């Protein structure tokens, strides 16, 4: 393409972008509603659309640059790779796990020593990040591995949180009892949801699960006598072997954690305890999920994602495969809910809105559908980054949205794509050049 044509193309695209964004985004940017009046001027609309037009031209420039580079690589680079190394046998095991393992152990190391330097605030950020890691791993099973788009995932999170708070109030279940209880209850609900939607996939499934999530939230919001409605409900603080993390014991003859150890009371201990327990649970979950992924059930999940009809004709029972995906994902979310309730000490339905589901989905999508290290990374980045960029807090959702769209267009498999180790046929003929 001649440079003059290219320039014309840039100008054309830039002008189109300017014009379209001026019409669409312009009016909302220019004027602000103040009661029945408006304030502002059209100048701001110009600024917004000009910025977008410039951005569009820059992206075009980068794109054409990249395409040119690609062409060069294709022309030159291909031959040098083939046959450069000789390995015994025809098959070659492509292993992608080595780097991942290293990364995971490094991350674990950082996670263990980080609270020693951070203090109370870092602990709370860490707890939030781990809760989202759990949620991301849970949804990753359902969406990433089994390919069932679940937009109501937050329902299981809510069930976990409420089963801890309500279980403590009505059934006297403690923190440790609540973890298996919430996991079981959420898994049961996951199966309950999965049964009717067995035949659905894609968009219909997404909408049904979305409806399910909203129904759960609305019931929590409206059932005043049981859940406290919008006012929420108190969740008790966790305890360790009956030792409480409060200033003074609330049950009679009880001992608190600091009294037992004979140290000064500090609210940090509670956060440290939750952090440590959560770290343990996260580590176990990562281990379990990565094992599951390579077991036959995990392979069945992924096979089902790729082609359901082929799967069924090969004798895979799609009912158990789907149910197990939903139940596994839900139980992980339920556990995350217990930790959320224990950490917050108070829960209400606003924590379980659709936005939360979208956020968890964003974590899974940005990390890479099906990729465990990707999901962990994305969960940590998406929870820690907003803390670091406090001054841009109001743009947080906007940035999520933009990154979801851009990711789908640019890298639909996520930042760290899910790659299976697989057998690859080694090229037999040596290339003429070597």
């Amino acid at each position, binding site marked *: 393409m001649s440079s003059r044509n290219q320039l014309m193309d840039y100008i054309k695209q830039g002008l189109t972008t300017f014009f379209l*964004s001026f019409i669409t985004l312009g009016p*909302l940017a220019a004027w602000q509603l103040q009661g029945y*009046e408006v304030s502002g001027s059209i100048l701001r609309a110009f600024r917004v659309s000009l910025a977008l037009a410039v951005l569009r031209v820059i992206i075009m420039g980068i794109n054409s640059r990249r395409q040119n580079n690609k062409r060069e690589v294709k022309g030159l680079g291909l031959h040098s790779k083939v046959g450069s190394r000789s390995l015994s046998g025809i098959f070659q095991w492509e292993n992608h796990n080595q780097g991942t393992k290293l990364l995971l152990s490094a991350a674990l190391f950082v996670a263990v020593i980080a609270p020693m330097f951070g203090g109370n605030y870092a602990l709370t950020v860490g707890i939030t990040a781990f809760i989202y890691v759990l949620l991301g791993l849970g949804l990753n099973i359902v969406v990433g591995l089994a390919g069932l788009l679940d937009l109501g995932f937050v329902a299981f999170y809510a069930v976990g949180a409420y089963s801890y708070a309500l279980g403590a109030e009505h059934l006297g279940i403690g923190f440790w009892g609540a973890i298996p209880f919430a996991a079981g209850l959420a898994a049961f609900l996951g199966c309950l949801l999965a049964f009717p939607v067995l035949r659905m996939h894609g968009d219909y499934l997404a909408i049904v699960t979305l409806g399910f999530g909203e129904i759960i939230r609305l019931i929590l919001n409206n059932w005043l006598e049981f859940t406290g409605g919008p006012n929420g409900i108190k969740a008790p603080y966790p305890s360790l072997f009956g030792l409480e993390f409060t200033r003074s014991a609330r049950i009679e003859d009880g001992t608190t954690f600091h009294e037992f150890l004979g140290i000064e009371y500090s609210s940090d201990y509670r956060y440290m305890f939750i952090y440590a327990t959560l770290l343990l649970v996260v580590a176990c979950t990562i281990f379990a999920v990565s094992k599951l992924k390579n077991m036959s059930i995990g392979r069945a999940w992924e096979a089902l994602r790729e082609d359901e009809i082929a799967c069924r004709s090969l004798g895979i029972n799609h009912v158990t495969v789907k149910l197990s995906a939903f139940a596994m994902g839900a139980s992980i979310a339920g556990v995350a809910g217990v930790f959320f309730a224990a950490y917050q000490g108070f829960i209400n339905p606003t924590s379980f809105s659709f936005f939360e589901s979208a956020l968890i989905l964003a974590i899974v999508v940005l990390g890479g559908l099906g990729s465990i290290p990707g999901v962990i990374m994305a969960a940590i980045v998406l929870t820690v980054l907003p803390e670091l960029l406090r001054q841009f807090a109001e743009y947080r*959702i906007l940035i999520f949205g933009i990154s979801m769209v851009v990711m789908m267009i640019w890298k639909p498999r996520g930042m760290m794509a899910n790659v299976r180790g697989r057998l690859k046929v080694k090229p037999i003929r040596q290339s003429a050049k070597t």
Partner: protein
Amino acid sequence: MDSHILIQQLANGLVLGSTYGLIAVGYTMVYGIIGMINFAHGDIYMVSAYLTALVLALLGASVSPVVALIVAFVLVVGLTAVFGFSIERIAYKPLRKSPRLAPLISAIGVSLILQNYVQITQGARNQAVPTLIPGGLEWNVGGGVVGITWVQVMIIIVSQLAMGALTWMISRTALGRACRATEQDPKMAAILGINTDRIIAIVFTLGAAMAAVAGVLVTLNYGSFDFSIGFVTGIKAFTAAVLGGIGSLPGAMIGGLLLGLSESLFSGFVNSDYKDVFAFSLLVLVLIFKPSGLLGRPQVEKV
């Protein structure tokens, strides 16, 4: 059961259902043509509500209500149609050939973008528009008063007119024929010389325009809105589309009316707190037991 409450709820349901039907058109046409749920559609409706308020406030009291109404209609429907077109071009067109989850996730992204953009530029608080056309009709029925405002009458009439015009366009004009052809078989339509990309863009634009009609009317009727109204309204309109049979235009209107009527009867006689739960349960039940809806074609799974 008091008869005047019943009639009042039926009238309310008719008004509500007409707007659901208008928004459902956008879902049903887009789903019919590219098989994707346009998740951002409810938020396009929300944007049109904001645009209505902006146009009305900019016009102020300088013009008569009727002129203001017409100007608002033309401007808002036009602007929102461009919105629909741009969104399709930016967020969905590059994903035409990707797996089915990709456009859906992209649409959720667009929905978040629209909500947050409006929140940033206009603030999170509730907004309101002045009453443009006061008054209405009232009847005495069986010991009570049944009232319906002029705006509500306008909603019923305008939505029927808009639906009629759209149905005529789809069934009688060359453009409509191209739309139907693309819906039945995009590949074959392209071979026969139809620019399917253009048709898809037009469908998005039309859907957004219909949502804008609903946006103007509902804003005038309720007078208050905020940046999050698109979500619930969107799901309900989608319910209407599914109820009527997704992909079918008359189905969207029938589904909308059915949903509006049953929802307002439910909130009038059973429990108004749980009216959203009712609508969502209806959606889930219809999708489970009769996913093809009332007028839709059953979907056959192909290898």
